[in-house]
């Protein structure tokens, strides 16, 4: 398990690379999370004072944070803290009651789910939701189709675009299956894949939509330590390809090991934000989360 890093030189550089007309960050870089740069170029997704109510239940209460390009960002909290709700709001499943969610500077509130996906946000599901009777390859190709332009007419008459996109989509899908390590199962119906393989397949399918931001909803649920370690490697490799990763997880060790920054939710409120080390030492977090026994082994 690698030690969570504190402040890499890269991050310090990023702080220094602020445009001149921006106020210079005051104090040390440790306070950077508090003085979040809202207008910086490196902000990929911004959750801006989002409140989400279901009837009388406040699932999210004035939550704000932002994701930077190229980082692995953790969203954690005890069960029922609002992680998945937040996640669903960010991927267009729920519409925030108040506040805004901006992706690359553009509001995504009210956009259709498929528009958000094609805009560059991909996700996996907490409970694996593959297309069970499709082969692994076909599952990934559905994701790849998100950016294809083959019309019904060109599919019907087998026009050149059909052949071109079918061929490239297939090649890319196989490449992604290789990337997540299950290319040998390409031709198998996905319901016959093992649980771990299904999780990997879901990640491959999400990556096939060519995301800028990949959101993983508890990808390690039900994994043994060895599988978790593999997943960690995979997440890092995904980040290394230039994709920003949002990770929802309640396995603390996994989150601490892989993320660059973390936001902690409790009862729908943000109670802490910072690097893993900062979050770990935050008294509020310890009280709310780490101090109580959890199932995180």
């Amino acid at each position, binding site marked *: 398990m690698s030690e969570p890093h504190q402040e890499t030189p890269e991050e310090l550089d990023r702080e220094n690379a602020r445009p001149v007309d921006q106020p210079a960050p005051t104090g040390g870089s440790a306070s950077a999370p508090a003085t979040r740069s809202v207008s910086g170029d490196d902000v990929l997704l911004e959750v801006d004072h989002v409140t989400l109510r279901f009837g009388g239940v406040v699932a999210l209460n004035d939550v704000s944070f932002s994701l930077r390009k190229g980082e692995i960002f953790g969203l954690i909290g005890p069960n029922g803290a609002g992680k998945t709700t937040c996640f669903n709001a960010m991927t267009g499943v729920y519409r925030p009651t108040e506040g805004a969610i901006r992706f690359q500077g553009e509001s995504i509130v009210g956009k259709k789910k498929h528009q958000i996906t094609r805009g560059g946000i991909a996700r996996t599901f907490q409970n694996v939701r593959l297309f069970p009777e499709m082969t692994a390859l076909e599952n990934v190709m559905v994701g790849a189709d998100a950016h294809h332009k083959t019309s019904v007419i060109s*599919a019907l008459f087998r026009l050149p675009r059909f052949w071109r996109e079918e061929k490239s989509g297939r090649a890319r899908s196989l490449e992604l299956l290789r990337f997540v390590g299950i290319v040998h199962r390409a031709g198998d119906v996905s319901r016959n894949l093992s649980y771990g393989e299904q999780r990997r397949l879901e990640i491959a399918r999400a990556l096939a939509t060519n995301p800028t931001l990949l959101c993983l909803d508890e990808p390690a649920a039900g994994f043994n330590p060895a599988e978790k370690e593999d997943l960690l490697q995979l997440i890092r490799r995904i980040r290394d390809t230039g994709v920003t990763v949002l990770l929802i997880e309640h396995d603390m060790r996994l989150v601490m090991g892989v993320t660059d920054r973390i936001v902690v939710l409790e009862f729908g409120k943000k109670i802490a934000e910072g690097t893993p080390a900062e979050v770990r030492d935050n008294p509020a977090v310890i009280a709310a989360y780490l101090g109580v026994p959890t199932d995180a082994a």
Partner: protein
Amino acid sequence: MSEKASFRTSGGVRGWFGRQPWYVRAVLILFFTVLAYLLPYAGDVPLLGPQIITEGIDWPSALFNMSYYVLLALGLNVVVGYAGLLDLGYVGFFAVGAYGTALLTSPDSVIYADTGWKWLMAVPAALVLTMLAGVILGWPTLRLRGDYLAIVTLGFAEIIRIVATSTTTLRGDRGFASIPHPPGSWNGEPIFGVTDAIPYFWLGLTVIILVILGVRNLDRSRVGRSWLAIREDEEAAEVMGVRTFKYKLWAFAIGAFIGGLGGVLFAGEQSFINSQTFVLQFSILVLAGVVMGGSGNMAGAILGGVLISYIPDRLRGLSFGDTDLYEYRFAIFGAAIILIMVLRPQGLIPSRRRAMELKDREKEVAPL
């Protein structure tokens, strides 16, 4: 193991067929296609022939009937089998195709003076009309799911029938007569006459083959993948970037188009249609055919379409003791459907995928 390899290791006739080299498959397909075109002469085959055809009816006409039933089954299979949308009003599209043709070509039509079209000219217009009907029905209703969609489509078919019955323009029971036959002549005689149904069957068969090729092309493309994804998990499909509404609407429009083709052919052969032709039972019958044959699988839909037309016909002239079986045709037919569904709930030639989905659902209902 590559994807292709795994497809070809499956058992049964289809598995065997898939493992053959392409030229064997081509020869087999050609052989069965030729056989299909020779079906009108089945009665001339010694011994076997008389068993297949029905005494006392015009066998080529029966074959033509089968051909438009098969077309309807193929079209409904796109909607129900591929996209997973339960459509109980499919006869509505058949009716729109037939009425479209009648309105444009029959001397009884109020716009005949302006149009006076031949059959062939009316075909594209009638088909555009049916696709339009599919989109008009689908646009507001495809947001509904499952049973609700089924009820709305049921209503659609009834609306079409009632409008046809009660508006003077559509002439109700009196119907439209003298709808022209398809064009063409051979040795000075029109090919599509009133006495010989063989050319109509051949025309129907040709249309069926074209439809099979078209639907197959769609099925093996992102369109088919999208339909399958929608059927299996609509929400997940949308999150993966599938424009679910668009593809459901396309399924409706394509289904309507194929149903309209059936209607156009029907009008051209019968030369007369009225509102009595398009009763609701017709929709249910075609749906029964699709489910019985194997929903989601074209071979199954074709077999189902053949059976729903063939079984009742075949009982004609048969007797059991003193009882004429034809009088009990629907009872016998119903019993046959029930028997098939009990013994093979996924249909006679099931789609493998649909079969697995059904099994999954069974498990959900009764966990082991």
